[in-house]
């Protein structure tokens, strides 16, 4: 049975994110992912607030990156969070995004190696007394905690490209696939499965999640309208091969990217077509969303993550998902 996760961007005061998180727990979501961008509220402060006000929902950063936060600090943060929400903490690690890293003066150096080494360091910090690690990107020298982590923490690897997807299958307890279209998810799951097989694991050992841009409303037009800003950013950041897969004009994508960089939001959003919305989001009425999720399930995903924008009104959208969508997959 598929499980449902939800993503929140901590761009608003902590109490609003926590309010929605409590609602999500009450309404049957199993996983809560908080995005990690330095320009929003801090991910671990937000997660701490959520952990203190929830009881059951699994929660963690979705995703953090090893460049801006050193792996030992990530290990420390999740181990500490696990004292508040013991057994509920999950950790999403990805390579980050180039634009955000660039604004902090950091380069995305050897992303595959960085993610692989980060996962290894975090795991070893959780289970060993002293960690000495000689990697190509990271090194530790007798690093140790002065406290004992309570439990192991499942690590999800955020992935999009073919090599990262396979790596995620090999080393992750879970994989966060950044896509919502059956073509992309199908491709991604196949790459992940190869990685799982290479590692000699069973497919059921790894929780494969489709981490989608999602928008639901009883009125399809309103759902689509809410998805436009997020889709604009997804299109602007998508490699040509992905744009071609969906028949999206690369020139138009470049124009969107240029408009976003120039802060011309109206121009950027005005260029978003219905084809782009269909390709890069799960969007529409509850029945339309059910149909899309059912298609994604055929690829072999085990978790469906409802990501931004969720809908025009987050509170009502959570209720709508809980009342109309989740029960359909519990049958």
């Amino acid at each position, binding site marked *: 049975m598929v499980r449902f996760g939800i993503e929140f961007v901590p761009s608003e005061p902590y*109490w609003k994110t926590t*309010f929605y998180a*409590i609602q999500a727990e009450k309404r049957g979501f199993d996983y809560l992912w908080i995005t990690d961008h330095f320009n929003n509220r801090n991910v671990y402060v937000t997660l701490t607030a959520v952990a203190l006000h929830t009881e059951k929902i699994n929660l963690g950063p979705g995703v953090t990156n090893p460049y801006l936060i050193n792996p030992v600090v990530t290990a420390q943060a999740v181990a500490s969070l696990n004292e508040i929400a013991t057994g509920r903490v999950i950790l999403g690690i990805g390579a980050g995004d180039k634009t955000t890293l660039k604004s902090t003066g950091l380069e995305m150096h050897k992303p595959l190696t960085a993610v692989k080494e980060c996962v290894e360091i975090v795991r070893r910090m959780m289970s060993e007394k002293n960690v000495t690690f000689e990697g190509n990107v990271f090194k530790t020298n007798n690093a140790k905690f002065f406290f004992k982590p309570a439990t192991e923490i499942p690590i999800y690897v955020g992935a999009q490209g073919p090599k990262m997807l396979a790596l995620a299958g090999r080393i992750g307890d879970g994989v966060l696939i950044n896509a919502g279209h059956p073509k992309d998810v199908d491709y991604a799951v196949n790459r992940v499965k190869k990685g799982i097989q290479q590692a000699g694991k069973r497919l059921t050992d790894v929780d494969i999640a489709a981490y989608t841009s999602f928008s639901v409303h009883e009125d399809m037009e309103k759902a689509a309208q809410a998805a436009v800003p997020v889709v604009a950013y997804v299109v602007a950041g998508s490699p040509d091969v992905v744009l071609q897969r969906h028949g999206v004009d690369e020139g138009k994508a470049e124009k969107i990217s240029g408009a976003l960089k120039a802060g011309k939001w109206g121009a950027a959003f005005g260029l978003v077509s219905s084809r782009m919305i269909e390709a890069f989001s799960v969007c529409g009425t509850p029945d339309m969303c059910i149909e899309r999720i059912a298609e994604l399930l055929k690829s072999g995903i085990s978790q469906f993550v409802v990501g931004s924008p969720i809908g025009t009104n987050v*509170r009502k959208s959570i209720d709508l998902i809980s009342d109309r969508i989740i029960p359909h997959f519990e049958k």
Partner: protein
Amino acid sequence: MLRKAIVMDYHRIVEMVPSGKREKLSTKLIDLILKSKNADKMPSSLARALLHQWQRSPLTNEIGITTLLEAAVILESEKTIEALEEKLQLPDVAKAIRAVE
């Protein structure tokens, strides 16, 4: 002390709301608060109280509505009074809130 006094005032106001209208009022206040552009004006102690109650109840009981009302008046004073008068048809409650303000 001041907040305690305010809570007492709001609690008395909530008692004026007929039980049949409390759920609708709760939903309206939640939406006013969540949609507010003044979210940063929410006092941290009130935010903690609101989250504490939301975790434990659907915010339709007297304590929950009292907290919601206090928050809504801080974040969206005019819109709250307007909603009470026009959408919820509770002019006496709106008048009592103006007196507290």
